[in-house]
């Protein structure tokens, strides 16, 4: 990254007596995972370019508790949720955007009963709204004409019925969007959900991410587009397993848009 974009924190905003339009919830993967950090940076570039007034919680952010909840640890989940809600409510946050469908689902659906009521958007939905408002231009550029297939993250797609926002953005890139045989509500999981990301799979004859990568490879894509840091990891591993990493890239929708414009 050539220049570092200033990423303001809520604490800094507060000190100046301001509130940003939207909180960017970075998430654990977006903060710590090397691959996912690139997605975070790409999204920040897009926000910056569209002049979005945003801030992050920085060191005040903590895991939403999603993996704990899916693993069955409701205690830990609620401890995390209550702590995060306390922080967000103190900053009077109204609107949240995140690039992680797991954070998105948890913040949007599972925080309200615990006292955290915000308007929560997945970054593809947010980018789509910027596009509609004319604040963001998405144009073909580098990816024009490339074959791209989009893998629906379970927690964005089936879990919350968001299927179109990422596809609309990709179409705007003037790419050839090809669907896998199982997509949208029939999409196959990448294998990471339900806390599987953090453990070895049970014995079987195949790993789920390989099965899903095979679906993607059948479409003979140049790029596999994802909208989730965990799917991204799973699909990247799958592509490596098939020794296709030199010809097929796995990229987040935000990265595609940012890279198309050479941001």
């Amino acid at each position, binding site marked *: 990254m050539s220049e570092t974009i200033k990423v303001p924190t809520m604490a800094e905003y507060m000190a100046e007596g301001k509130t940003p339009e939207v909180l960017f919830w970075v998430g654990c993967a977006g903060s710590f995972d090397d691959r996912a950090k690139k997605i975070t940076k790409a999204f920040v570039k897009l926000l910056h370019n569209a002049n979005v007034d945003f801030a992050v919680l920085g060191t005040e*952010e903590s895991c939403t508790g999603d993996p704990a909840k899916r693993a069955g640890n409701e205690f830990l989940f609620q401890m995390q949720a209550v702590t995060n809600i306390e922080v967000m409510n103190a900053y009077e946050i109204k609107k949240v955007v995140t690039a992680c469908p797991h954070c998105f689902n948890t913040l949007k659906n599972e925080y309200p009963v615990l006292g955290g009521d915000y308007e929560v958007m997945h970054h593809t939905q947010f980018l789509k709204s910027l596009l509609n408002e004319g604040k963001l231009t998405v144009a073909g550029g580098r990816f024009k004409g490339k074959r791209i297939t989009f893998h629906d993250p379970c927690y964005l797609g089936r879990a919350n019925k968001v299927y179109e926002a990422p596809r609309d953005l990709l179409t705007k890139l003037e790419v050839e969007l090809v669907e896998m045989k199982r997509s949208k509500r029939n999409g*196959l999981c990448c294998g990471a959900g339900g806390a599987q990301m953090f453990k070895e799979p049970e014995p079987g004859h195949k790993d789920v991410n390989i099965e899903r990568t095979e679906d993607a490879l059948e479409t003979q894509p140049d790029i596999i587009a994802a909208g989730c840091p965990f799917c991204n990891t799973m699909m990247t591993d799958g592509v490596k397993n098939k020794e296709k990493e030199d010809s097929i890239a796995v990229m987040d929708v935000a990265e595609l848009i940012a890279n198309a414009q050479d941001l």
Partner: protein
Amino acid sequence: MQYIPNILFVIALVAGIGYFTMNIRKIIRNIRLGKDVDRSDNKRERFKNMAMIALGQSKMVRRPIAGILHVIVYLGFIIINIEVLEIIIDGIFGTHRIFAFLGGFYDFLIASFEILALLVLVSVILFWIRRNVINIRRFKTLKGWPKNDGNIILYFEVVLMALFLTMNAADLQLQELGADHYVKAGAYPVSQFIAPLFDGMTQGSLIILERTAWWLHILGILIFLNYLYFSKHLHILLAFPNTYYGALKPQGEFDNLEAVTNEVKLMMDPNADPFAAPTTEVEEEPEKFGASDVMDLNWAQLLNAYTCTECGRCTSECPANQTGKKLSPRKIMMDTRDRLKEVGDNIDKNGSFVDDGKQLLNDYITTEELWACTSCNACVEACPVSINPLSIIIDMRRYLVMEQSAAPTDLNNMMSNIENNGAPWPFNQMDRLNWNKE
């Protein structure tokens, strides 16, 4: 003497319906063993779901071949049952084709029933071929009783439809012979082709044939009704309440455990006095978190279990199952139902439940199955009658983690990371913004 058939008929009818009612009450009692959950909201949307999914079969037709065949059998089943109403009235009062006075409309009704009966026959045969000849994995993996159950129902349908058409064909012959009691009524687009088989039979034998088919048909229906209780075919009835009471929230939203919320609030509240004597409910047993047996599930989940048709659409979409893991969401539902039946039988025998040393966890569902789930909701999306196997998996995980501390080691590490550093990996929370400095 003259009234003997009427009396026999009423006895059969009362016995058939009585036994059925008794079993339905047992099912309701068993479902009520579950914990309470509020599904009384949004009546409009619930009615809409029931109309679309149960009555309108909207999710069945997502798989077009099976879906359309199923719609035919289902419509046939419902519409031909209008005829059963006439049969019951005739049976009680000794009349014959009591609705014949409807004239042209009666012709239309009988003609529709016949055409439907033929379509049902054809569909049922195709279903049988799908189940037994074509290699469809979700059917091939069924063994023992569930496999037989699926076929028995198909044979039932064939016999009932054949009896119905035979009865009509004999009736048509009798009408043409001008036999007493056999009024000229109805149109017989299908059985008119069966009738010639009975050419040359005496009026007496035709009456015996017609009566035999009539009796076997109605007795068959009563037996079928009572067979439902022992079969996955309960879905014919339970699909309606089940789709009505199905969850309306987004699939990704897992329920909130109220009991945990109370404890967490207490822990986080700086004003709460940890040494304060608990007020009223001193001796109350601490609430059990999650589920290790059917009584720990809620009634909607138990209704789910009774509704499951064992079609296996869930399992055929399950990423864990497709990659060879032991988990099968269909099995989760079948196990829950089998265990619930076992608990019900236990209550029937002992008056109230007596510990039998068994439970749903381990004796039916293993932890290996539970930990293989990716919580992807594919099973929930695939189920044609709004069953949620995932919610049972999560409740059982909750029991394992919160009551038994029995999570896989990797997950325990992940959770202690969250507890200590606010992330599932061992990174320091103070480094959360470092991505921006790299």
